């Protein structure tokens, strides 16, 4: 990608006054946020803070009550080909009769457009994406035979096949094994080094400083957005999680202790 600095290059994402409501209750309220430069961003917040909704609102998967979203200065409907998406793993039926390769090929559909079927070159690039996530040997398996972490990696490979400039990932690290987590973080770094922006809905606060440059702290309202060093602070986390943070830690420890028994 062209990384030459432009004088007035448009922001990668510009979220302006976005409100999303479900049965009149705001899930996101007046979110104003611009990601100016390509970066690796974690979206953090307690359960029900609207983290996934933020991603879905940007992608147009949920209707906005008000506001607008621009990607690279254009309305999102015109820039779909630049956007890669990794939905939550639970969002699809893994008993669906398709192979792992079929799923990854779906990443190329946007480029192909109407009616055209994926051909040899699409297959080849899909296989390369599978190799990058370490699933090439499983390409012809039905997707239901994959483990949870492998399913997540298949989704990741599909997003890679989109060959996008901007990626949204909805909890890619939820319930995956250590190997998958390593693969995912390796890819995040790689994508970032290629000048791409990756926005990741994330729940594990411990790994944030290791893997991300920027954080978006969300609790229906935007609490803070900025560099990890300056924004990922106890003060901001308390504002985001309220009294819950302490409770959250205790709960997490209790769960771990009971799992060990």
């Amino acid at each position, binding site marked *: 990608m062209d990384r030459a600095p432009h004088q007035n290059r448009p922001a990668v994402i510009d979220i302006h006054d976005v409100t999303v409501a479900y049965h009149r209750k705001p899930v996101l309220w007046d979110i104003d946020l611009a990601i100016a430069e390509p970066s690796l961003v974690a979206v953090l917040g307690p359960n029900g803070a609207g983290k996934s909704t933020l991603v879905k609102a940007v992608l147009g998967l949920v209707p906005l009550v008000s506001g607008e979203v621009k990607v690279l200065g254009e309305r999102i409907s015109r820039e779909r080909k630049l956007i890669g998406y990794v939905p939550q793993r639970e969002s699809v039926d893994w008993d669906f009769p398709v*192979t792992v390769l079929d799923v990854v090929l779906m990443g190329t559909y946007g480029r192909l457009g109407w009616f055209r079927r994926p051909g040899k070159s699409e297959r080849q690039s899909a296989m390369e994406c599978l190799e990058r996530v370490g699933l090439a040997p499983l390409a012809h398996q039905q997707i239901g035979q994959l483990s949870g972490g492998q399913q997540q990696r298949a989704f990741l490979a599909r997003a890679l096949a*989109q060959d996008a400039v901007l990626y949204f990932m909805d909890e890619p690290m939820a319930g995956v094994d250590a190997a998958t987590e390593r693969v995912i973080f390796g890819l995040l770094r790689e994508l970032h080094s290629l000048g791409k922006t990756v926005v990741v809905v994330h729940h594990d606060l411990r790994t944030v400083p290791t893997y991300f440059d920027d954080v978006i702290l969300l609790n229906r309202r935007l609490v803070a957005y900025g560099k990890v060093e300056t924004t990922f602070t106890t003060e901001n986390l308390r504002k985001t999680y309220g009294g819950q943070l302490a409770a959250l830690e205790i709960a997490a420890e209790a769960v771990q202790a009971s799992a060990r028994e």
Partner: protein
Amino acid sequence: MLDYNTAVVLVGVTALAVTSGVVGTFLVLRRRALAGDALAHASLPGLVGAFLLFERRDLYLLLSGALISALLGIAVIAALRRYTRIKEDAAIGIVLSVFFGAGIVLSRLAQNRTTAGSKAGLDSFLLGKTAGMIYQDALIIVILSLVTLGIVFVLFKELKLVTFDPGFAIAQGWPTLGLDLMILSLVAVNVMIGLPAVGVVLVAALLILPAVSARFWTERLDTMILLAAGFGAIIGITGTFLSASFDRFPAGPVIILTGSFVLGISMLAAPRRGLVVQVIRDYRFRKEIECRALLEEIYEFAEQRSWPTKEQVLHRSGERAALRRLIHQGLVREMGNDHLELTTPGMRRAESVVLGSRLWKMFLDTHPDLAGSLVDLSHESVDEILPPDTVRELNELVRLQGRWPSLSAR
């Protein structure tokens, strides 16, 4: 010999059933199987209403009325879901029963107003009547079927994506709602042309049965669609002949019973997903696990003391059966005074079983976080599942604890 009328019906019903199988596949995979049923039931008030309004029994007039009220039914389902807190399954249930109830009441009204001949005509729409199908009807069914199949073929990629992952499809810029509506309209048209032959009550089963049957035989969408079409053809042909020979029964139930026979066979006999194979596989697996457990027990007994007597290792009847198998396989032999001993191949096998089980248990102890998703009893050895460095680490730990199985070396 095939007479002309039967041939016409045969072509019509078969084309109908083939197309139903194809569009039904998308409906079933999208978990919308009940939408077809709602469409069919919701068509009744429109069908009867058209008759009451125009007082004519023109088939295409009636079917147009049916299509209008069916689409209205679907719109009501969508509206209930969107604007109230009623969930989709309840919304489908409401529309299906309310529209059908209204249709029945209207048809009694029609009976009171008209002559006996006309009312019999309306009643046949409930349970279907293939005998009335004429050349022109069959021709229209065939044309609409070809159009439907053509659309599915051209849009195969798009429909596959929208059915598998609608969220991703929207994010990629596909008009998911439009494609969904298109599939529903194909279903609606299919239901309408099926109404006279199969009837309001059962026409939706023609969408579901071939698709669900096909799913048992394959893990590929394209194969599943071809199979569903094939099963549709079988159901159409067999159903037509059966309903022709049992004149006293309405056609719908006869055709659908044929379909349920296809489903029954698929459910039982399919090679990987079928019940018979599953039961056999479970049975074999249980036997295998029991044999492994007994080998392990004999081995560990010998490790600590000496070769055990039967009494010392056999506690349940399942274990006696396992022992017979092991002896039959030449892995264990009976010595005098009721003692059991591992043969040379038995020793090799037992050592591999014991090592596998100790490595797995070590993995459970050292990686409790991953154990749940990775441990798999069908794999005796850890090598195939865990990464090599983990396997090395586990081997080391088992050695350190002095638990490496080494009885054969003594």
